[in-house]
């Protein structure tokens, strides 16, 4: 649910906890991850500008698009980028990630270095160094919000790009360092799951507290489309899909939610699913037993039941009830002899035992002829 994600990112981290982290994951079957990313980016930005969020600034690490693209995007969505108070910084890892242009220009004698002096963007020339990347992000963030306790958000455009240059363990280290830094309010990133091995996706999911996956409407086997669908219909369904989110809650439970989304003209709309497919987690419960234990309340109630053969201390002899209705003398004691279930009467403090007899024709029970050993 996009709303819940936006809320979670907006609310940010509690004191002493890691910042919430979101992985947006898509695949070639439904490649709208970037739309979701920009949607969340604009939502978070408007929240920051309206001062509704925990964070006061946003650091955007741009790998797959240039910083000017993002600035245009935000301007189009009506978000004031060049406002008086600086709230966004973009770390430009798109223009010259490995420093080649720099090296080229330096090798041509006297070539002037073209500085990317666009607003709000600083250049990163070495994306292989995770420590440097980390410190640049933190510096930029502190540059926005100052030295106090105010936090900022981090958005990473595409983790796949980082993974081209660095190993998964160093990227995991970067993400966990960002999450545990107490200046970071929340962090989210986009990953295309089919660009990497499953293990990489598993690691990214391990590092995050929310996982949003984008799936096509019709999941056909091996991603191949069904042959009998007509082309216009295919094209129509291409722009729609399912948006599944898994939240890892603090108490250790996982909240699973789904929505449908529809992309039209580079804007993405979410709506809730009309027909719910209930996924029953039967696989989790192999052997479920019946409860043979008694809860506390049940134990107390059981202790209150007066058993038939025990002396109640009143000095009266106890009649043994054999279940036949013919017993006419009134009893001040409770009805004796039980079946498997003990039931308690809420009104009286004494418990009751309810005995249903099979039939009246049966011969008398051996209850009527007790042993000498018994104490009745």
């Amino acid at each position, binding site marked *: 649910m996009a709303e819940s994600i936006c809320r979670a990112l907006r609310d940010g981290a509690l004191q002493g906890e890691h910042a919430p982290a979101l992985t947006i994951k898509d695949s070639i079957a439904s490649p709208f991850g970037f739309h979701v990313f920009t949607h969340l980016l604009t939502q978070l930005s408007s929240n920051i500008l309206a001062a509704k969020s925990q964070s006061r600034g946003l650091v955007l690490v741009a790998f797959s698009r240039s910083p000017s693209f993002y600035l245009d995007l935000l301007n189009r969505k009506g978000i004031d980028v060049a406002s008086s108070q600086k709230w966004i910084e973009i770390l430009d890892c798109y223009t010259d990630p490995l420093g080649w242009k720099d090296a080229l220009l330096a090798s041509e004698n006297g070539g002037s270095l073209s500085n990317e002096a666009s607003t709000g963007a600083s250049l990163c020339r070495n994306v292989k160094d995770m420590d440097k990347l980390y410190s640049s992000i933190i510096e930029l963030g502190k540059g926005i919000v100052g030295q106090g306790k105010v936090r900022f958000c981090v958005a990473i455009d595409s983790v796949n790009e980082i993974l081209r240059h660095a190993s998964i*363990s160093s990227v995991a*280290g970067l993400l966990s360092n960002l999450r545990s830094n107490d200046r970071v309010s929340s962090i989210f990133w986009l990953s295309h799951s089919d660009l990497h091995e499953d293990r990489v996706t598993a690691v990214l999911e391990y590092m995050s507290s929310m996982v949003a996956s984008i799936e096509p409407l019709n999941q056909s086997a091996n991603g191949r489309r069904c042959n009998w669908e007509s082309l216009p219909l295919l094209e129509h369904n291409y722009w729609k899909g399912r948006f599944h989110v898994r939240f890892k809650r603090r108490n250790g*439970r*996982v909240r699973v939610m789904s929505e449908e989304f529809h992309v039209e003209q580079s804007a993405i709309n979410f709506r809730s699913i009309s027909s719910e497919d209930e996924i029953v*987690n039967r696989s989790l*419960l192999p052997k479920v037993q019946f409860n043979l234990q008694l809860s506390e309340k049940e134990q107390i109630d059981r202790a209150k039941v007066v058993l038939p053969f025990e002396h109640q201390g009143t000095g009266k002899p106890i009649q043994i009830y054999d279940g036949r209705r013919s017993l006419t003398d009134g009893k001040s004691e409770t009805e004796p002899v039980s079946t498997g279930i003990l039931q308690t009467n809420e009104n009286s403090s004494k418990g009751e035992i309810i005995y249903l007899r099979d039939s009246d024709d049966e011969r008398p029970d051996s209850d009527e002829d007790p042993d000498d050993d018994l104490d009745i």
Partner: protein
Amino acid sequence: MDSKAWTLIKLINCRPDVHNHWPGVAGSREPPLKSESTASTLSTKSLLTITYTPGLKYGPNGTIFISSGIPDLDKILGGGFPLGSLVMVMEDAEAPHHMLLLRNFMSQGLVHKQPLLYASPSKDPKGFLGTLPTPGASKDDKSRDHDPENENGLRIAWQYKKYFGENQHHFDSNRDVKHEYCHDFDLRKPLEKHFISGQHIDCVSILDSPNLAALRDRCATFLAQFPRNDSSISSAGRISIQSFCAPQCKYSNMEWDMLSFIRSLRSVIRSSNAVAVVTFPPSLLSPSFSRRWQHMADTLLSVRAIPDEDKEMAKLLTGYQDMVGLLNVHKVAHINTQVPVILDATTFSIKLQKRRFLVLESLNQAPIDSSSGTSYGTSASCSGSSKSGTLDF
């Protein structure tokens, strides 16, 4: 009939070679030839003649157990974790329940003054010690802990009962909190400082180590303090390694190295009086390695998250609201024996009783609405209410 001759003595776990005051009988349930009052003192005396180290329990086949810190888990595993075994806990990437197990394990060791080695992928493992729970209130207020030897469970109208006046004493010489084998830990209150300071606690961060040589050396020196030989045990050691293949560790893609570390740890532990608990997320390993790691374990547990607000599950299970996760017992250590341990149930629900105490319960099916389903599935006994069929005799 001499009622005193019929007095039952609580079974005391003791090693076979312990000098027994009852000649010819080693720890079996037989009526003593002496009076009960001396029998009770006899049993306490015989307990004290064993080198009674708090925190150790002697079990069958010469195994010695230490407590896991969770009373229910000790019961499920048949006494606790046996010394010399490697316990592995498979984490679920979506839930932090393995931390609950580790916390109880470590706190129990500190309360019993057992030295501890803790390794974790965080930069400052010492910080974790601040989250360890403290032992909660004593067992008196737990009504669910019913004593099976207590004869009040079965009430019989027996005319000789009146001779049994002095029957109901408990051999609870271990009621003293200090000597209790397994404490109930209150997860909301942190452990008192005196347990942590001045103790042999070694914290290691495995985040930046490029390979596992340093950790291997630390474990080896730690375990050298607890060699296993025929002399009596002075104390037992505990090793806990958290999230061993966490992705931010530099060695985490060296799968064969990690496997050989586990294998060497297991072999050194076998000849020591210590227990190691290693947690790892199996989803971050390749399937074949995940299998290999699972085979390395003596005791294998796994924790799993449960979905939140799942109506199907709420209908299927009782107590779904209180559950925070599931615990599966895949393997139970059986050292020195060829008899496997077969459990009644292998899946347990993890609940936090009163939000404080970790409780494991077997999964119970919610009562099926009797108006809808067939009646034979609902109750266990009940011959009276079922329809009489052809098998009525």
